[in-house]
């Protein structure tokens, strides 16, 4: 095939096709690049920076950077691991992440990422910000304490649901997810079956009355680190 592109990730030769991102090619090859704001069914956001890799020596987001012939990608180096770890730690101290009673615990991608990186506790001081909860909707609630501003709901609601319900407001540490209604989530066109609800990586947007359905020990990340499914592909090939 003429549009085949060969490059290396940590010295391992990877073959992808023209137009693929580093993450897509790596996934296919069974090399896991950690990610949070990325979702298989959505356009890449490139905002969380957990997927940062070095391309020919420069830091780039693997979820948005296109592959090219012969490029050198570094993924698992001490320096990059340290960057990713500190991003996850910052996300933990910036919000109010009380895993012990969160319905998402065990299936949460932020938590799973911290487990994968072996984070016992963040090195940064906790901010304990004041965030609000909107439980006005009959079937869905937003708990902004747990929001990591990945923007998945924004992209899903805009591109998949076609409802444009979620958007970021404010800047910097004041940034938060807002809705396209004057006051409450109940006033929006949101449905519990929307993609925007399904894609939240943490417990910020959740369906009501389905929490804690899976017992501890049988949840998604109880035994296998996040990314194991992708790495299993490599073992097979």
């Amino acid at each position: 095939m003429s549009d085949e592109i060969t490059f290396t990730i940590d010295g391992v030769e990877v073959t992808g096709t023209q137009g693929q991102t580093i993450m897509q090619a790596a996934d296919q090859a069974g090399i896991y690049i950690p990610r949070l704001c990325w979702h298989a069914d959505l356009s890449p956001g490139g905002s969380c920076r957990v997927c940062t890799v070095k391309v020919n020596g420069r830091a780039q987001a693997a979820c948005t950077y296109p592959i090219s012939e012969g490029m050198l990608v570094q993924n698992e180096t001490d320096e990059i691991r340290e960057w990713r770890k500190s991003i996850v730690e910052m996300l933990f101290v910036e919000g109010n992440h009380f895993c012990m009673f969160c319905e998402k615990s065990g299936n949460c991608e932020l938590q799973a990422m911290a487990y994968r990186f072996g984070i016992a506790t963040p090195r940064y001081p906790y901010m304990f910000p004041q965030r609000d909860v909107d439980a006005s909707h009959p079937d869905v609630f937003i708990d902004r304490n747990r929001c990591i501003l990945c923007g998945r709901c924004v992209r899903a609601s805009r591109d998949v649901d076609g409802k444009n319900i979620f958007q970021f407001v404010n800047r910097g540490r004041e940034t938060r997810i807002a809705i396209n209604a004057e006051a409450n989530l109940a006033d929006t066109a949101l449905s519990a079956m929307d993609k925007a609800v399904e894609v939240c990586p943490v417990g910020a947007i959740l369906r009501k009355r389905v929490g804690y359905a899976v017992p501890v020990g049988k949840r998604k990340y109880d035994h296998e680190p996040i990314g194991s499914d992708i790495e299993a592909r490599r073992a097979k090939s």
Partner: protein
Amino acid sequence: MTKPKIASTSLCGCFGCHMSILDIDDRILKLVELVEFDKSPINDIKRFTDRCLVGLIEGGCANQENVKVLREFRSHCDVLVSVGDCATMGGIPAMRNGIPLKECLAEAYLDGPTVHNETGRVPHDEELPLILDKVYPCHEVVKIDYHLPGCPPPADAIWEAVVALLNNKPLDLPYELLKYD
């Protein structure tokens, strides 16, 4: 040879982490062979009698008394371990951190729907430790050497950690033992 000493305490915690210590089951007999317990709720020794090798801290700092005890542990123990989410991040008690202290006290002692308080005042007595503006994780108050998250941390994680510390070995917890819930 004298046995190394170990101490433990529950600051602003629910004693669940101490329950998890007991959850090591029959290994507790082995633990007694390995170490001698100094100040700890397990043996009810109230004051330090000697310098300790390991101090296990459950709970975060919510009041002056917690800070005093934690500092005492720091000065008596070679190695301090934060055990459980309350010690490592404040835990459930830290849910009040986003709410001004005045409002918390008013809800608890004055305005709450089930409050019966004829004095109409927030309890204030020399005997009561002064409550802090918010709940602090232990490592934001003193230097903490190791962290064991979990609510509570699995008994196996506590066991592995204590055994590693006693044998001067690096602690390499398997994936399943590092949990936040």
